[in-house]
C-alpha cells in the first residue's frame, strides 16, 4: 500500500504542532528583534505545568473532560506569569544591545529556566496520557489516528487565524505592524512601543507554553525537551523568513512534510533532512522564503 496518505497525515499533525511554537518565536523576533532561545524553556514550562494541573485535576476525580481546560489554563498561567516577568524584569533593560548579544541573553535565560524546571519538577519523566486517550480514535483514508491530534490541528488553525485577524484588522494589530516596520518612526507617531513589546512577548510566551501544554499528553515530559524543540523551531522560522507569520506557516508545512517523508521512507535521515532544508534555504534565500526586498542601510 502506498505510504503517501500516512506521510501527508503525519505531516499535517507535525506541522500544526510546529506552527503553534514557531509562530510565537517569529512574532517576538519580528517585533522585538530577539531570537528567543528561552522560547524552548517556555515550551517545556507549559508542558510541565500542564502535567501538574491536568494530572492534579484527574487525581481529584473531577470530570475527565475538564483536563482539557487544565491544559489551556497551564498555557495561560505560564504565558501571563513568565512572559511579563521576563520582559519587564530583564529584557526591557537590554533592548539597546546588539541583536546577537540578545540571543546570548536569552541563552543565559534558557540555562536558568532549565534548572528552575529541574528544581521544581525533578528530573524524572512525567506523564499525563488521559487527555490523549479520552477522545478515542478516528479513521481517515484507512489509517487510525487518535482524535486528540485533531485538537492540535484545530489549535494551530485557531492560532493562525486569530493572529491574522488581530494583525490585519484591529487597531492594535496595525500599530504592531507599524512597530515591526519602523520602531523609531512608530514611537515618534505616538505608538507606545514599550507596551507593544510587553504584549508581544507575553503572547509569544503563551504560544510557546500552549505548544508545550498541548504536546504534554502525547509524550513523556522530560528535561532537555526545550533544547530539542527550540532548534527545530529555529529551522521553521528561518525557512519561512524570520519575523514573518506566513513564513512560519510555510516553514512549519515544509519541515512537517520533510520530516514525515523522512520518517516513513528513510528514518535515519529524519534530523539530517530538516537541517539540510534549513541550510539550503539559507543558502538560496538568506532571508527566508517569505522575505521581500529590503532597503540597504549603511
Amino acid at each position: 500500500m502506498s505510504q503517501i496518505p500516512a506521510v501527508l497525515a503525519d505531516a499535517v499533525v507535525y506541522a500544526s504542532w510546529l506552527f503553534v511554537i514557531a509562530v510565537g518565536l517569529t512574532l517576538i523576533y519580528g517585533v522585538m528583534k530577539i531570537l528567543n532561545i528561552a522560547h524552548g524553556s517556555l515550551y517545556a514550562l507549559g508542558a510541565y505545568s500542564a502535567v501538574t494541573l491536568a494530572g492534579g485535576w484527574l487525581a481529584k476525580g473531577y470530570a475527565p473532560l475538564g483536563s482539557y481546560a487544565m491544559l489551556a489554563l497551564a498555557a495561560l498561567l505560564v504565558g501571563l506569569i513568565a512572559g511579563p516577568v521576563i520582559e519587564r524584569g530583564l529584557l526591557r533593560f537590554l533592548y539597546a544591545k546588539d541583536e546577537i548579544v540578545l540571543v546570548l541573553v536569552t541563552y543565559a535565560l534558557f540555562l536558568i529556566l532549565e534548572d528552575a524546571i529541574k528544581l521544581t519538577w525533578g528530573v524524572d519523566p512525567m506523564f499525563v496520557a488521559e487527555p490523549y486517550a479520552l477522545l478515542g480514535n478516528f479513521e481517515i483514508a484507512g489509517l487510525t489516528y487518535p482524535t486528540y491530534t485533531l485538537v492540535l490541528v484545530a489549535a494551530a488553525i485557531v492560532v493562525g487565524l486569530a493572529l491574522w485577524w488581530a494583525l490585519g484588522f484591529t487597531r492594535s494589530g496595525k500599530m504592531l505592524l507599524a512597530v515591526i516596520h519602523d520602531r523609531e518612526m512608530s514611537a515618534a507617531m505616538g505608538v507606545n512601543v514599550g507596551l507593544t513589546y510587553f504584549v508581544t512577548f507575553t503572547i509569544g510566551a503563551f504560544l510557546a507554553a500552549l505548544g508545550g501544554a498541548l504536546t504534554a499528553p502525547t509524550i513523556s515530559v522530560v528535561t532537555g525537551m526545550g533544547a530539542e524543540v527550540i532548534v527545530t523551531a529555529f529551522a521553521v522560522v528561518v525557512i519561512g523568513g524570520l519575523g514573518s507569520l506566513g513564513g512560519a506557516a510555510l516553514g512549519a508545512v515544509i519541515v512537517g512534510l520533510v520530516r514525515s517523508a523522512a520518517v516513513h521512507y528513510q528514518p535515519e535521515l529524519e534530523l539530517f533532512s530538516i537541517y539540510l532544508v534549513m541550510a539550503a534555504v539559507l543558502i538560496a534565500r538568506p532571508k527566508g522564503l517569505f522575505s521581500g526586498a529590503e532597503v540597504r542601510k549603511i
Partner: protein
Amino acid sequence: MSVHRTSVALVAAAGALLALGPVIPNWAVSLVNVSLGIGVVVLGMMVLMRTGLVSFGHGLYYCLGAYAAGLASNRFGAPDMLAMVAGGALAALLVSAVLGLLLAKYREIFFAMLSLAFSMILYGLLVKSADLGSTDGFNVHAKSIAGFAVEGDAHRLGVYSVIVITAALCALLLDAYLRSHRGRLAEAIRDNELRVEYMGASVFATVHLNYVISAVLAGVGGALMAIHIGHIDPEMTYWPQSGEFVFIGILSGTGSVFAPLLGSVVFETVRSYAYEKSPDTWQMVLGVTMLMVIVFLPGGLWSLASRLRGRPDSARTGG
C-alpha cells in the same frame, strides 16, 4: 623584529605549566587539560568575534576534530596523539574551507543560523550512524606521542604536556597572525566593511581566512578533548555545546590571546565548583554569570585586566 611581549609571556606560562605537571594533583591536571582544550576552541571564537561574527555552530568543527582524532586512532591505526591532533585540524580545515565559501558572505543572525544548520546536519548524521556508535559515540585511546608509547603515569603526563604545548603553540601562531597586516583587518571589517573594501582589501578573503582559522582551532580543541576524555559523542556538535563556546568567548573578551585561555580556566573552575556545590543549579549559576557579564562587563573579563592597567580596551566585543 623584536620578540613580542605576548609571545614571551605565552612561552613562560607554558614552561611553568609543564614544570608543574609532575607535582600538581590530578584534579588540577584535569582542570588544565579541559580549560586549555576548550580554550583552543575559544581562541577560534575570538578570531570570529574580532571579525564581528558569532557562530552558533562551532560545535561542528569541535566534533569533527574529535571524530577525526577518534577515527585516526581507532580505524586508521594511528593512536598517536600528534597524529590525532593533526587529523582533527585537517578535517576541520577541509570542511571549513568549503563551507567558508558560503558563510563568508553572511553576517549577524544569518551567519549564526547557517552555522547552526550545518552543525545540526552533522548532529543528525552522527546520531543515526550506528557504525560510529550513534548517540553513544565511542571510546578513544591515544597510545603514543610521536611514536613513543606511553602508559600509566607517563600517559597522564603525556596528555597534559601535549595539551599545554599545543594550546601554547596555537596561541603563539594566532597572536602572530592577529598582529599581521591581514590579522588587523578583522576589527576594521567589524567596524565598517565598506571602508575596508574602498581601501582595497578583500573583505571576503579575510572573513573566509578567519573562518577557516577559527574552525581549525576548534578542530584541534576537539581532538585534544577526545584525547583527554577518551570518549566522544554527537553532543559535541549539539547546539548547547556551540552556545557554550560563544558564552566563554563573551566571558573572556577579545583583547588578547590570553583572554580565551584564562576565560576558559575561569569558566571551567566556576562550572566544576558550581557542579560540586549544587549539582541541580549549576546551569543557573552559569546563566546568571553570563547575564552579569553581558550587563556589567560587555568587554569580557579581559577588559577588566586592561581597565586595571589604566588602558582603554584595545578590542571590545561587538555590541
